[in-house]
């Protein structure tokens, strides 16, 4: 009997060891700050950064990447033609020279000497190959090539042309020729987007369907290399000594940990495991006074869509009244408390500057602000014009906590401030909200929009008639025409004026939507971290110029 028990215990133990061996514990030896300090020189801060990520990397294949996590990794381990600087403006990366023909439709880029991590040179063919690969595989971000006006991109997307006909050609190893449909002042800025990164054809084909699935199955040519990637746990970067600009890179190592629960993030920060975390609104009150607390503005904006075919909501006075009846400051500061700020325009604050260096938001100011009395006056006029005495409409929202909080607040505000207004809340899953929106089967819809590239246009051209993101049957021919003109205007100051005017048409003239607020994130970051850049679009972080100073 005793022997039997012992044998069973042994079996159980063996089973445990077997499973334990299949556990893939992550191999990072990073972590506690004592350990990190020990391998740094005396008195000198060790250049190791520990960060958290909200999710695993979905894919490292730059042609297929589609989310912030992957974009950030790719931006730091690879190098394209251009890269975003600290003001999110394009600076030359692999490009040493850029010339264009007279009508600015044929661009010639000369590349510098640089190497992939397997020692092979990075060539113009690598760009041509990767770009055509994006189009061939109908990748999630292939529309970036249309945005960049690259020749035949739209035709290829619609199945009217072959991917090989894309307007990109390697003239020789160091010369890349890009042909556009029409002049595009945003070209360099768009080329910083990770979808435009190069890939080494020979390596990609050798790897076949294993390409980019693990850290070993991808090549690097950026400021860092990935030394390790353990799925769902994290990944480690090391400085790339072969990088063309290795002198500028100060960090030796970066360890990223996948942490999905914000409270866990706080606890890891408290135990010095990570140096930078995002806070959830529950933790904000607790850390508000902490010297390492900070809020950063995000470029996504949350707004209300109107169904412009609705008999009453189609009235401009009604829309304007709804705009004014909402106290947006209380919404962000009392209800949400997550670092977001009230927004009275369609282009968010803090990311987009005129060629003269002035912020778009400051230049255009606030739209449709006014007192409750103003709102009520407009409301009465609007009701009279529409020939009704009261209004009951529903609002289409996602069933997330944030959306519910916002919708309940809007309900209270609008029903209190506008006599006869009744708002019904219809919460559905995110995907369904989107379907309802695309089919325009709503009265009001709570929506959000994030930018695709660093230019106000990404918030403005969506409102043209038939635009795939219009989704509310809004139409103003003046706006359509101005968007078309701005797309080809190459005088940057003139173009910026046009961008300001487009917003005026949308909001001042038509009050077409209700901008509510601009997203924000509250973070904790140890002050020894310097030079970590957060971008509004594409990759969210650049570590190239970051350092640790203690």
């Amino acid at each position, binding site marked *: 009997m005793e022997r039997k028990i012992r044998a069973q215990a042994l079996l159980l133990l063996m089973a445990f060891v077997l*499973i334990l061996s299949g556990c893939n514990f*992550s191999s990072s030896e990073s972590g506690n700050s004592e350990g990190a300090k020990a391998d740094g020189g005396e008195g000198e801060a060790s250049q190791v950064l520990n960060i958290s990520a909200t999710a695993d990397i979905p894919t490292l294949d730059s042609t297929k990447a589609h989310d912030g996590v992957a974009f950030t990794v790719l931006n730091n381990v690879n190098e394209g033609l251009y890269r975003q600087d600290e003001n999110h403006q394009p600076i030359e990366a692999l490009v040493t020279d850029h010339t264009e023909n007279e009508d600015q439709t044929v661009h010639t880029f000369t590349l510098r000497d640089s190497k992939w991590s397997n020692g092979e040179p990075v060539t113009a063919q690598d760009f041509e190959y990767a770009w055509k690969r994006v189009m061939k595989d109908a990748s999630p971000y292939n529309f970036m090539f249309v945005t960049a006006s690259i020749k035949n991109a739209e035709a290829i*997307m619609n199945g009217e042309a072959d991917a090989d006909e894309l307007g990109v050609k390697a003239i020789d190893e160091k010369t890349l020729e890009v042909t556009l449909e029409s002049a595009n002042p945003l070209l360099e800025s768009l080329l910083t987007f990770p979808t435009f990164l190069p890939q080494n054809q020979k390596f990609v084909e050798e790897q076949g369907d294993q390409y980019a*699935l693990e850290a070993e199955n991808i090549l690097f040519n950026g400021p860092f290399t990935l030394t390790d990637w353990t799925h769902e746990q994290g990944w480690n970067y090391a400085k790339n000594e072969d990088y063309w600009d290795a002198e500028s890179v100060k960090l030796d190592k970066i360890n990223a940990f*996948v942490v999905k*629960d914000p409270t866990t993030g706080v*606890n890891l920060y408290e135990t010095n495991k990570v140096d930078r975390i995002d806070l959830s609104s529950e933790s904000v009150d607790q850390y508000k006074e902490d010297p390492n607390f900070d809020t950063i503005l995000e470029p996504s904006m949350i707004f209300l869509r109107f169904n412009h075919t609705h008999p009453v909501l189609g009235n401009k006075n009604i829309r304007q009244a709804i705009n004014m009846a909402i106290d947006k400051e209380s919404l962000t500061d009392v209800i949400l408390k997550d670092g977001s700020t009230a927004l009275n325009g369609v282009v968010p604050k803090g990311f987009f500057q005129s060629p003269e260096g002035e912020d778009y938001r400051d230049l255009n100011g606030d739209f449709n602000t006014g007192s409750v009395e103003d709102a009520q006056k407009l409301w009465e006029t609007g009701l009279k014009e529409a020939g009704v005495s009261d209004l009951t409409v529903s609002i289409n929202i996602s069933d997330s906590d944030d959306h519910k909080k916002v919708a309940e607040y809007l309900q209270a505000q609008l029903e209190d401030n506008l006599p006869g207004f009744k708002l019904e809340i219809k919460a559905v*899953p995110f995907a369904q909200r*989107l379907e309802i929106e695309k089919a325009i089967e709503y009265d009001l819809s709570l929506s959000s929009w994030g930018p695709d590239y660093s230019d106000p246009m990404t918030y403005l051209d969506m409102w043209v008639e038939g635009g795939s993101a219009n989704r509310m049957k809004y139409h103003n021919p003046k706006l359509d025409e101005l968007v078309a003109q701005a797309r080809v205007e190459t005088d940057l100051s003139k173009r910026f004026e046009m961008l300001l005017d487009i917003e005026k048409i949308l909001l001042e003239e038509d009050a077409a939507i209700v901008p509510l607020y601009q997203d924000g994130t509250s973070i904790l970051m140890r002050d020894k971290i310097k030079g970590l850049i957060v971008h509004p679009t594409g990759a969210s972080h650049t570590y190239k110029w970051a350092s640790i100073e203690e």
Partner: protein
Amino acid sequence: MKGYLLKRIGYMLITLFIIVTATFFLMQLLPGTPFTNPEKLSAQQLAVLNAKYGLDQPVAMQYLHYLGNLVQGDLGYSFQHEGRTVTSMISTRIGPSAFIGLQALVIGAILGLVLGIISALKHNSIFDYGSVALAVIGMSIPSFVFAALLQYYIGVKLEWLPVALWEGYSSTLLPSIALSVTVTATVARFIRSEMLEVLGQDYVITARAKGMRENQVIVKHVIRNALIPVVTMLGPLAVSIMTGTLVIEKIFSVPGLGEQFTLSILVLDYSVIMGITIFYSALFIFVVFVVDIIYGFLDPRINFKGEAA
């Protein structure tokens, strides 16, 4: 016995088939697309993508296609993790889940046994009330609350064990302990009532009358007999642990399967939803089967022919 086994296996396969079918068609009712970045997808792009993944075909055709692949053991590719097969996603992530689950089961069973035995033997004493109170607390407070408390006090304040992440054996302890609370409570309560019942049985009185030592009576007659019904509990407990891991894995950043499951439903990753559902169902069906078999071995009154004993 052989006939019984074959019959059971047959039923198991039918159950699995029904689950696969139901999940497949229910999933089609969910709104949206499995593709990434749905906010920005235009109608043309959607059409191209649907054609590429065969989602433009009638649902019945897709279903037959899926079944065909499934029979060959092919669970397809993930939509969200480009290029990764569902099989590889499950196989790399099942290890951590299984380990903390089994460890929780062992910790919970041992602790529960000890608590249960003490409270039965010291019936109506302060020990009894104490462990009953513990069991009630353990049953009524969800494991994620314990997880948060353990993480804060043991991890942050005392720094005895890692707060989270998956970096060696010590990081498996807190999640396992958090998960084991329900098991401990259930087992303790069960053992206590079973032992109290067995203690009053004739054969216990007989054993004592024969002059057997009390220790032996307890170990040989009482505990052994009280354990039999506990085995039946292990099946449902294993199930509750698997569902418990969904939250625990997220809190402790464990790279397990449970967290992937909820995520795949939220983003409508069809092939991953199907793969994990099939995997979990098969596992549940198997655990129930094994428990039934073990039960038969432990209790000679049960036979597999289905005749009354």
